[in-house]
């Protein structure tokens, strides 16, 4: 059953240079307990999408339209007060840089307690006990000492564990993780990814993972949605997407990352380049958003925007020329 259903989400910003269509008509859903990855490069609208789900977009200059149905309610119709009861409770979020998302003058314990006392109505003592349990759950050694420490006393990996502890404290149904491991070193990233996978099994929350790292996607996502210039261009189960990407942009992205071990298997080759750059979202785009950089683009692409079409089992892509059915790998 769909836990979250987003229909025709449009998040636009008024800027001096015109309306920036950061997210322009994106629809998707997340099932209970599912992990959906949203991938794309800077400016594709993946973070704006997640901020829109949490209604963290300042309005104005932003404006959110469409519908975001979460557990039967349209989040866009809720009052600010009702929305506050959902944030951090039913839907919570972790960000890329834990140093800027934790409050530097409050102890870690106080920051975990806060959500528990506000949303779950626990008293200070019960919240403290639960905070220590949460720190144990996310694998922080000596949790009883750590609850009394401040964020600057923790390393980057520990801070991200604290962020995860805060996010999971109220047993959310949906966790939005926006580039959760991008700022971390690779050995610490491995720890955090393992933690997220373990916790997912134990807590059962659905996850929206926002990232540009295809390795991280392959590691923990079940389904992937690829965004480009504020639109969804492709969506498929993770194995299917990596095996037979249909949209030329997805194909380009996969070809642009070198594989570890490629020098040994003799598969080393020149990296595929996607020429040019992302279009200016302040100017209206007629036709396919990727036409300007696509090697296959024709007049058809430049005139008519392709709709999302079914190209395979649970696999949709927005391209006039993407092959349908099974593609021989």
């Amino acid at each position, binding site marked *: 059953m769909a836990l979250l259903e987003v229909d025709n989400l449009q998040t636009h910003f008024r800027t001096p240079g015109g309306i920036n269509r950061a997210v322009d008509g994106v629809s998707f859903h997340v099932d209970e307990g599912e992990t959906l990855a949203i991938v794309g490069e*800077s400016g594709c609208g993946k973070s704006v999408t997640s901020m829109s789900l949490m209604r963290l977009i300042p309005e104005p200059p932003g404006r959110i339209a469409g519908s975001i149905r979460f557990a039967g309610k349209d989040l866009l119709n809720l009052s600010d007060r009702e929305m506050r009861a959902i944030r951090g409770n039913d839907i919570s979020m972790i960000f890329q840089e834990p140093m800027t998302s934790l409050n530097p003058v409050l102890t870690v314990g106080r920051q975990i307690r806060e959500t528990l006392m506000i949303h779950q109505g626990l008293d200070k003592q019960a919240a403290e006990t639960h905070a220590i349990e949460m720190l144990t759950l996310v694998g922080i050694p000596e949790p009883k000492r750590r609850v009394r420490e401040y964020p600057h006393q923790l390393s980057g990996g520990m801070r991200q564990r604290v962020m995860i502890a805060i996010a999971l404290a109220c047993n959310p149904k949906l966790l939005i993780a926006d580039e959760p491991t991008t700022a971390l070193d690779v050995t610490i990233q491995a720890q955090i990814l393992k933690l997220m996978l373990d916790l997912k099994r134990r807590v059962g929350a659905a996850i929206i993972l926002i990232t540009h790292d295809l390795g991280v996607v392959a590691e923990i996502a079940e389904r992937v949605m690829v965004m480009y210039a504020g639109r969804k261009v492709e969506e498929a189960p993770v194995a299917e997407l990596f095996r037979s990407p249909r949209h030329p942009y997805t194909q380009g992205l996969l070809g642009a990352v070198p594989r570890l071990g490629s020098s040994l298997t003799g598969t080393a080759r020149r990296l595929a380049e996607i020429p040019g750059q992302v279009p200016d979202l302040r100017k209206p785009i007629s036709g396919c958003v990727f036409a300007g950089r696509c090697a296959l683009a024709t007049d058809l692409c430049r005139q008519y925007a392709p709709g999302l079409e079914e190209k395979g089992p649970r696999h949709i892509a927005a391209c006039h020329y993407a092959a349908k059915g099974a593609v021989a790998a």
Partner: protein
Amino acid sequence: MSPPLLQVNDLKKHFPVKAGLFSRKSEFVYAVDGVSFEIARGETLSLVGESGCGKSTVGRAILRLFDITAGQVILDGQRIDDAAPSTMRQMRRRVQVVFQDPFSSLNPRMRVRDILAEPIRNFGLAKSAEDLEVRLTALMDTVRLPREALNRRPHEFSGGQRQRVGIARALAADPELIVCDEAVSALDVSVKAQIVNLLQDLQSEFGLALLFISHDLAIVEHMTHRVAVMYLGKIVEVAPRREIFAAPRHPYTKALLSAVPLPEPGAQRNPIILKGDVPSPINPPKGCRFHTRCPFVFDRCRVEEPVLRAAGPEQWVACHLEEGAATTSS
């Protein structure tokens, strides 16, 4: 045999830190603590490791952005770590740098033309105004930017284009070695591929040597000839690309490689998950610096620091286990 282009011998850089507000006793960050390596002409050596391992400090020491604590940096047979300003000036032309963030490393008030002309004028490389113009347009062609972009300022470019300007500025001085300090790390996937390809083309075209400092192991494998792995200010393993990626010897190299997520869903892999964090370089662990996180630690590691030993032709490893392996097999 001609000397290597760059030779670094037992390089140390300790930064003083104040222990407390009223304390006189100052402590040191042992950022780089005895690092030696060589780079041949036209070769790419990659320095890899996690934040705080000292890889950027090594790069900056070679550029002589600060004076080093101990050791030697020898460029083409001549020491540059203690060279007088007049000799240093000529040496600086031969070693250039490309930084990570093209937004903060280009002066926003200067046009690209002036950014690129500065090193050319500074080192007196252009014979005349026409020659300067020829060089400028050639640089733009080399990094595949339109010539008319010479009159624009950095903010008018995208991140990838800015990094091309940064590379053109490094090339303007006609260098033999370029230090690339996380030069592609801040770029998006598709743009990163463009810059990586450009660097590879430039290397084969001009026979440049590169010191490629990066934490991205897949990119390193794609680009490099040799790799030096650093941990807490020391090199723990140096080897040609093939050996590092096919048969890493040091436990840290193994853990680092196994931690990289592969873009292959369902790939069978058993990452070695290291416990804990990198210790502080102010109080590095005694003995082997990796012993607090090493899965194979034994008593000797806690007291005695392992030295780099040959583990194969061109492969060097600093680990007590290696020594054991060598004695039992011989």
